[in-house]
């Protein structure tokens, strides 16, 4: 392991880096009680360091997992062999909100559904990595470590001269290649719901860095089942691939929610006709459903005939009688997740509930067993965080819970970005690291082979 002292170059410049992030407008938005607030995403200067060996095995495991998930999505929207063969109960597919019957029979170009997968992992105290969840719809966050790295290089160039770190600035190129692989003929565009979206900073950053047009729905239209971008002169430019940053339900008011004001009418007809690639494919939610998570190791065996390299956190489905019994007997030590929620919402730690609340919760689970999964609380590795690193008080190093969102891109090949978004909880008692719950982020350094052999 690399020594702590090697980071003094970044730590010493923490205030400067945070100031640069502010100046560059690195923000994310939160809606609370219907009011939009934009916040700076607190950056911690102490990077998470992953050795080359550790990364190599994680990389293999992530590629295997995402390949299996892509096979699963194709299967579910076509022959449904995994259900017919009894590996996954039918209920889990069709009750899932992410399953979209409207997408039945559509085959995206190259059969890729999840082009950009954000896989959340945690490292346990024994060093083993566990998968916490898969995000296959519109996983966000890649831009934050990208810009943080960029600014850290400006503020503390010596840190990068003295450490052998894999350059993470290739993400934009990786994304561009991934988009091109699904391009059905035309320009690349990134569709944003606009300025008041939580991840607007990221949309504009990625558009700029991939050479894509940043668009909103009123600049687009579908004519003869082809998607076009309106030009200023009243003409039109064909769009071949659309990296959309809006949810499935809002994508096309003529196919999904009729009341959607941010969608593009007849986009699904253009997509079905093979005239435009959509990244990620609509309907992916069925594969990153928290209930389906339980079955991913089984998918890897079923589709690839391989043993899963990365483990799931030990998970129980109250849907199964024996799991229900275990959950009822051990509720106070488990973490319960509502499968319909995301962003750290709907996560309940049994240990934090009073006796009455536990009893009440048991009843809820019995009434709606399909709605919940239960997991063992993994004793995960705490990472050092510099408190008051933004220059607003005395600094000190404290230990906090953190996870890692790895970005896996599926184009001609499936590739893992040698970096990732490390999120941490600023609250010492909390395991929830989501930025929407007030967490911060760190850069993630993957070391080059030479360094790890020192």
């Amino acid at each position, binding site marked *: 392991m690399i020594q702590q002292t090697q980071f003094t170059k970044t730590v010493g410049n923490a205030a400067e880096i945070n100031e640069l992030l502010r100046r560059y407008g690195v923000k994310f938005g939160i809606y609370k009680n219907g009011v939009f607030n934009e916040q700076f995403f607190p950056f911690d200067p102490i990077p998470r360091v992953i050795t080359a060996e550790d990364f190599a095995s994680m990389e293999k495991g992530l590629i295997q997992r995402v390949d299996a998930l892509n096979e699963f999505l194709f299967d579910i929207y076509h022959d449904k062999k995994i259900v017919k063969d009894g590996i996954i109960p039918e209920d889990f597919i*069709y009750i899932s909100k992410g399953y979209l019957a409207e997408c039945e029979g559509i085959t995206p170009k190259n059969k890729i559904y999840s082009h950009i997968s954000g896989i959340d992992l945690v490292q346990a105290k024994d060093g083993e990595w566990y998968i916490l969840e898969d995000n296959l719809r519109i996983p966000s966050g890649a831009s934050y470590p990208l810009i943080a790295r960029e600014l850290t290089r400006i503020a503390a160039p010596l840190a990068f001269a003295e450490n052998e770190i894999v350059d993470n600035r290739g993400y934009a190129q990786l994304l561009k290649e991934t988009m091109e692989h699904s391009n059905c003929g035309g320009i690349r565009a990134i569709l944003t719901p606009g300025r008041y979206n939580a991840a607007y900073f990221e949309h504009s950053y990625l558009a700029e860095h991939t050479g894509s047009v940043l668009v909103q729905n009123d600049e687009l239209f579908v004519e003869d089942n082809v998607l076009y971008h309106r030009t200023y002169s009243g003409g039109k430019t064909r769009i071949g691939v659309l990296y959309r940053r809006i949810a499935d339900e809002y994508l096309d008011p003529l196919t999904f929610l009729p009341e959607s004001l941010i969608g593009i009418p007849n986009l699904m007809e253009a997509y079905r006709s093979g005239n435009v690639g959509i990244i990620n494919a609509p309907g992916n939610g069925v594969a990153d459903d928290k209930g389906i998570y339980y079955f991913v190791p089984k998918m890897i065996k079923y589709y690839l005939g391989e043993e899963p390299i990365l483990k799931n956190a030990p998970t129980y489905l109250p849907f199964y009688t024996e799991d229900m019994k275990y959950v009822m007997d051990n509720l106070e030590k488990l973490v319960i997740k509502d499968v319909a929620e995301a962003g750290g919402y709907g996560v309940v730690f049994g240990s934090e509930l009073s006796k009455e609340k536990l009893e009440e919760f048991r009843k809820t689970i019995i009434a709606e067993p399909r709605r919940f999964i239960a997991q063992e609380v993994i004793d995960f590795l705490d990472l050092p965080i510099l408190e008051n690193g933004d220059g607003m008080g005395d600094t000190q190093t404290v230990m906090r819970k953190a996870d890692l969102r790895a970005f896996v891109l599926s184009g001609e090949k499936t590739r893992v970005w040698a970096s990732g978004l490390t999120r941490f909880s600023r609250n010492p008692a909390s395991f929830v690291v989501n930025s929407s719950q007030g967490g911060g982020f760190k850069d993630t350094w993957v070391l080059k082979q030479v360094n790890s052999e020192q």
Partner: protein
Amino acid sequence: MKRVNFYYSTKLTFDDYVHDHSFALRIIPPETDTQKIIFCGLNISPYVSTQQTADAFGNNVTSGYLKGDHRFLDFEIKGSAETDSSRHRTDYMPCYLYQSQYTQPDESLKAFYNEIKGRCTGTVSDRAESFCDILSDTIEYCKCVTDTSTTAAQAFALKKGVCQDFSHILISLLRMDGIAARYIAGLAFCDGETHSWVEYWTGDHWEGIDPANNCPVSDDYLVISQGRDFRDCAIDRGVMFGKYTRQLQLVRSVLT
């Protein structure tokens, strides 16, 4: 087997110019095991280039985009078909077993199901027919109390509705009973507008039943579209821009 002629038209009139009007029509009857389309012509005015695709549920979708200012959109189909209700369709989809947006029951519809399920036993067809009988005694056919946005639960609370509401309630009951069911929009004899009915899955094929008339589906029914509920079957869906505040829709349909 029967030879039928069909005609359907919609006239949409706006009280001011609209533009950038995208639409998707599910109006051309699909060719299936129970109906053969002999001839079908579609006219749309103002003239606009259109594209044909088939959606996930097997419906013909005609899509188009009217860019310039216009104050109306008319479309009509005219054609003839051979219907044969003695034959069976087998295009099953598992999603038809699960409740959808319009059929999701509330507590009172669930309670109603629990109250009557003991009276609906036997084969899948026996059960479906019993549900249909009970429904026709419970719900009064009545226009103007519900509209196209009314769900099964809302119509059940009113105890009144039109063919669409009867279909949604029956589908909800069938699905609660573990029977896959789908919504059909189409044309039927003795009906001046479009009609809707239900198909349930017997285990190896679809069987049609008309809950609003409490009768089986015969050769006098022509399927135009099908899906989980009304939302998948809307004959026309459109999005347009303009200052208009109202649109007037006139529908005429004939099956002879």
